[in-house]
């Protein structure tokens, strides 16, 4: 039976067909649900891994300074005290706060000309996650939910969108999925920990668990015959997903990583979270977002960027290099972004304030031309002078990098909704 709420487009079929074709070609269909990392044959694992496209989003919460990262302006009245250093790509310089990342520059591209015209945290975050400005009465799905829908095979038991946060509660962020439905909601792992009650209570036997699941299945099926909605679908699926997740709970278990890797990534929270991100991507999670906090440095911007980027730099560079070494980078789109940048003007408390007018993001991996730099700001970084782009352009670019068509529609209540802002277009210069 065809689901009444389904859009009917070829998008579902596309990702599923592509994925299954890849699996069949490699002759490893039976191993599908277990992820790639556990496969015996490394070559087969690599082939299978590259059949699925993934996204890694590093979210630098609060608004990282473009001047202390991707677009340094040393020696100017806005440049602050840090140097610019050369990178692995001749001619590209970034802040001295990113020495390890500088050595991975050939895997990365920079867009230095973003103007979202938004200095509000929530509104800026919305733009960067959805590719659109907030509109009354309309909620657009976040990139993670969109990619969970477009890139995750329907029978993949794992969540398509996992968000690792530094703190808070683990759980489900259904608002991220908007009209796509709760099936594509984010699963939050606060401090990298799975949701509470992740494991079955010890007192519950296998047999008792099986019996209660059978009863629930029968009731759900009877209910679904009369009323079928996205919510009931998601409700039923969440049980299946939970059961399969529990069976695969080892994918969240960092103790299975080597002590050497823990040391390489750093023993701080962000280090552990990025190692977990690698593990999740290797096990077939489509979209992994890792938040690093906090960069909202109205006070002592330089001290705080020294501290925070000191954590970010080595960890991020290690993750990029590992994805490359493991054959995953070419199929994993890597994004480093914030809700906005920070003011070129240094305020009276040695801080920088919110600045959405001229700032940068970094991209890398799948579909991205490593070493590309697009756009330019003026000498002291106060304005974009070449190739101005906004969140809509970035959203189109992500689609294209992943081999997806940004001009297609979602369907909500049979109404077409463009997947990406139709007034924008991809930044072709960063695409491979």
């Amino acid at each position: 039976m065809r689901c009444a709420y389904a859009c009917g487009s070829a998008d579902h079929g596309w990702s599923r067909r592509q994925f299954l074709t890849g699996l069949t070609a490699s002759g490893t269909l039976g191993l599908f649900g277990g992820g790639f990392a556990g496969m015996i044959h490394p070559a087969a694992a690599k082939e299978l891994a590259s059949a699925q496209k993934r996204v890694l989003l590093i979210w630098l919460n609060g608004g990282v300074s473009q001047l202390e990262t991707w677009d340094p302006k040393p020696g100017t009245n806005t440049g602050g005290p840090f140097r610019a250093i050369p990178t692995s790509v001749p001619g590209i310089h970034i802040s001295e706060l990113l020495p390890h990342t500088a050595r991975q520059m050939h895997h990365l591209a920079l867009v230095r000309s973003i103007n979202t015209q938004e200095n509000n945290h929530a509104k800026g975050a919305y733009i960067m996650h959805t590719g659109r400005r907030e509109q009354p009465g309309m909620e657009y799905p976040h990139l993670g939910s969109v990619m969970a829908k477009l890139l995750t095979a329907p029978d993949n038991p794992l969540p398509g969108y996992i968000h690792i946060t530094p703190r808070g509660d683990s759980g489900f962020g259904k608002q991220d999925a908007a009209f796509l439905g709760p099936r594509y909601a984010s699963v939050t792992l606060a401090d990298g920990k799975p949701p509470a009650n992740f494991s079955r209570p010890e007192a519950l036997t296998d047999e008792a668990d099986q019996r209660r699941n059978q009863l629930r299945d029968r009731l759900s099926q009877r209910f679904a015959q009369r009323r079928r909605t996205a919510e009931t679908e998601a409700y039923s699926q969440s049980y299946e997903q939970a059961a399969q997740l529990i069976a695969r709970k080892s994918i969240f278990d960092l103790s299975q990583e080597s002590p050497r890797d823990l040391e390489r990534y750093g023993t701080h929270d962000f280090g552990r979270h990025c190692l977990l991100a690698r593990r999740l991507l290797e096990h077939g999670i489509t979209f992994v977002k890792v938040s690093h906090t906090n960069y909202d440095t109205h006070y002592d911007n330089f001290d705080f960027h020294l501290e925070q980027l000191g954590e970010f730099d080595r960890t991020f560079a290690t993750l990029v290099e590992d994805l490359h070494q493991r054959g995953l980078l070419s199929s994993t789109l890597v994004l480093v972004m914030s809700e906005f940048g920070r003011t070129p003007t240094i305020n009276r408390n040695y801080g920088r304030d919110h600045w959405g007018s001229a700032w940068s993001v970094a991209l890398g991996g799948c579909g991205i031309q490593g070493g590309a730099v697009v756009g330019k700001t003026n000498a002291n970084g106060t304005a974009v002078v070449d190739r101005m782009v906004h969140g809509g352009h970035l959203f189109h670019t992500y689609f294209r990098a992943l081999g997806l068509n940004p001009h297609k529609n979602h369907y909500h209540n049979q109404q077409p909704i463009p997947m990406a802002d139709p007034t924008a277009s991809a930044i072709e210069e960063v695409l491979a």
Partner: protein
Amino acid sequence: MAESDAKPKADPARTRVMVEWKHDSPLMACRFDPTGRFLLASAQDNSLQRWELEGGTKTGLVGHQSWVRAFDFIPDGSALVAGDYHGKLLWWPYAEAAPKPLRSLDAHDGWIRAVRVSPDGRLIATCGNDHLVKLWDAVEGKLVQTLMGHTRHVYNVAFHPNGKELVSGDLLGVIKHWDLDKGSVVRELDAKPLHKYDETFRADIGGIRSFAFSPDARLLAAGGITDVTNAFAGIGKPLILLFDWEAGKVRLQLRPKENFQGVVWGIVYHPDNFLAAAGAGAGGALWFWKPDQAQDIHMLKLPNNSRDLALHRDGLRLAVPFYDGSIKIYTMAATS
């Protein structure tokens, strides 16, 4: 009448502006030179600026490639030694008509946060983000000693008036008392009220932003920020911890009487046994405390964010550099 009797007395309550000069970049650290002829300040354009007190003629000392947040003078007035955020230490013949650096050393890996010259002028102490405290021969520029033990950025150093001991303070509010003959730690003083790990911000905030020994060496003042409620915006209270040096314990916490949010960026201990401090956050302020009273005896609201405080050798003039590029000299003279 004895000369000391003839000298005008300093009266904090009479503090007022004498003169104001301006540079076109925000100013940071400032010091009067030991001859009493010049006032120097560092700026966010990487320069040091020199003003002649007589007439206010301004001369730039250009050579650093990054910010200078700390410098000090060789007591005979032959040079000043400045440390920058690229870890370089430069000797400047600051009194010359067009000063050029005499020497440049790669002193620290990362920022140099403090520079102090010993009372006898033979040693220079520096500290920085490499967690190290270093002692240099002031004449030859050679490294004499490296003091290790801090686990985080070292924010400040100060020589004990006897010149044989040193204190260094870090981001976490750990103050180490060093015996310079032995090159070892004598003890640690606890200045943890000047540090906080902000769970929301996920970062450490605070540190020993200012140090001053009393001239009789019985008290040590360490200043910074405390009671931080919002690290994003630097919302907290200015605080000076006044240590009894012999006991190694905080004798008094000096706080502004009026509500003020911000940091104590500079402290001077006046020979007449009172402290003056400049702070900033939402605006600037100049406070005066007696060492036996927790609340200030006088406060002067400043027109902009102040970044440091310096005392002239005459004991009457104070200099404050500001974010807006201005520098003001205040007099505390009891009579006009």
